């Protein structure tokens, strides 16, 4: 994306985020300010989400996530969190994947009774713009989630929910007559369960299982099965290999994540996570990827 256009987009989103937050937070004298910063690194073994090992591209990335917002508590049972956030990743080898995501989010949580053990329901929505070095991946993202949870003991909580994600792509060019080129125009919906257990005063263990049905993007060399299973195709130059083509495929993705969080104090923690995902699509197309990460989190 040209720099001027990028700056215009970024400014527009920042303005939108700031105005939205100011409007919604005004008049809430008791609102609390929330500022979080995360920084760390990750390694993903199959960034291309390729089917065959020769098309796998793994890489490490440094990431920074920052969010600022307001927590509004209109009454004892309801909490609204309005925030703006920025997330950036810089890759070691595949620099075209470097990106900056700017977004706003709103979360609403309702407790069904008094006390820490009360069940709760929550709704979360976010809207962001994700700008990559590689123009093909530039997109607007929309995410929504409904969740029901409960803390069973002070050290044990669990929740389950459903989500919807949407990614809008206006860049992919069609190279196959009659087949869309917008491979990053993706939509999916799914469900998840998660739980957390405090092993000690400092160590929190967590897990999350999810099932998602919807579009996924896969980059590989020309593959007949993938071609037949795909709903969009376009050349992908982000990995510096002109043989690679990006495909959009409809599939069922199962994912599992294990994480551990070590609290240094009430404001900071070190978080390690391992996530594995496996997608099954039509015509026997299967691929998997895993991500390991280590992130330091600080809350001001």
């Amino acid at each position, binding site marked *: 994306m040209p720099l001027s256009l990028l700056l215009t987009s970024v400014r527009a989103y920042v303005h939108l985020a700031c105005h939205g937050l100011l409007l919604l937070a005004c008049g809430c004298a008791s609102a609390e300010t929330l500022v*979080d910063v*995360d920084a*760390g690194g990750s390694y993903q073994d199959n960034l291309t989400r390729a089917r065959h090992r020769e098309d796998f591209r793994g890489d490490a990335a440094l990431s920074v996530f920052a969010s600022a917002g307001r927590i509004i508590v209109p*009454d004892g049972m309801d909490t609204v969190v309005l925030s703006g956030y920025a997330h950036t990743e810089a890759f070691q080898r595949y620099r075209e994947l470097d990106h900056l995501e700017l977004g706003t989010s709103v979360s609403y949580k309702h407790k069904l009774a*008094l006390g820490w053990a009360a069940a709760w329901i929550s709704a979360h929505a976010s809207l962001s713009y994700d700008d990559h070095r590689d123009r093909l991946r530039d997109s607007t993202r929309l995410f929504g989630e409904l969740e029901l949870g409960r803390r069973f003991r002070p050290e044990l909580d669990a929740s389950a929910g459903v989500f919807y994600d949407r990614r809008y792509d206006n860049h992919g060019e069609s190279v196959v007559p009659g087949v869309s080129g917008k491979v990053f125009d993706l939509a999916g919906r799914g469900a998840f369960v998660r739980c957390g257990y405090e092993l000690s005063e400092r160590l929190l263990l967590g897990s999350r299982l999810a099932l998602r049905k919807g579009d996924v993007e896969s980059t590989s060399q020309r593959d007949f099965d993938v071609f037949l299973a795909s709903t969009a195709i376009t050349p992908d130059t982000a990995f510096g290999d002109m043989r690679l083509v990006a495909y959009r495929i409809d599939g069922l993705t199962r994912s599992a994540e294990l994480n551990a969080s070590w609290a240094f104090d009430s404001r900071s923690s070190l978080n390690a996570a391992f996530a594995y995902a496996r997608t099954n699509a039509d015509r026997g197309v299967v691929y998997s990827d895993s991500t390991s*990460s280590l992130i330091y989190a600080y*809350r001001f």
Partner: protein
Amino acid sequence: MHTRRLLATLALTTTLVHAQLPGASGEIQAVVTDESSKPLADAVVIAVPIDGNMRLTSRPRDEVDQVDKEFTPRVKVVLVGSTVTFPNNDSVRHQVYSFSPAKRFELPLYAGVPPEPVVFNKPGLVVLGCNIHDWMVGYIYVSESPYFAKTGLDGKATLPDLPPRAYVLRVWHPQLDASEESTQKTIEVVRGKRSDAAWALKVKLVAKVRRAPIAGGAGRY
């Protein structure tokens, strides 16, 4: 179960040393540690006269603050019948509650000082929480006896101005891994003298809702 009780009982040690004090009353110097001799702060020491003759004084107003989204002090001891206010010194509102049998109450979401204090008219332990900040936990120990004290960081507490007579002493601590009754011991307070009592308590980890952040901005509210 019997073994555990026996171990807990064996863990209790008592030493009685009498030192000269001026005046017509005596005092008890209590020392509370865990089994590895580490001083235990916030242990509540209660002395109940065996003859039941208690000089019930006026019941002052007490306070349990909320500072930096924590109860301050974390452990408060009050005499039965006392009133306690819960001033909120944070810039955010709190909703203090307790489900404890000794006192069930709820202070609807508030900032500043609530208009009405809470009366604690039944002896026992009252566990406090905040409905907005689940990690907040505090304890009010409502004593049936006016003779009580709370240990400091050094694990020591002094019960001064005790009329000379025999007392049953007991200890409570948030991490106590035994019944309060199992900590009981009898001690004779002598006029003008100091009596020492010591406990080595078996303690357990008490789980608390975590406050620290989790990557991704999660982990709170």
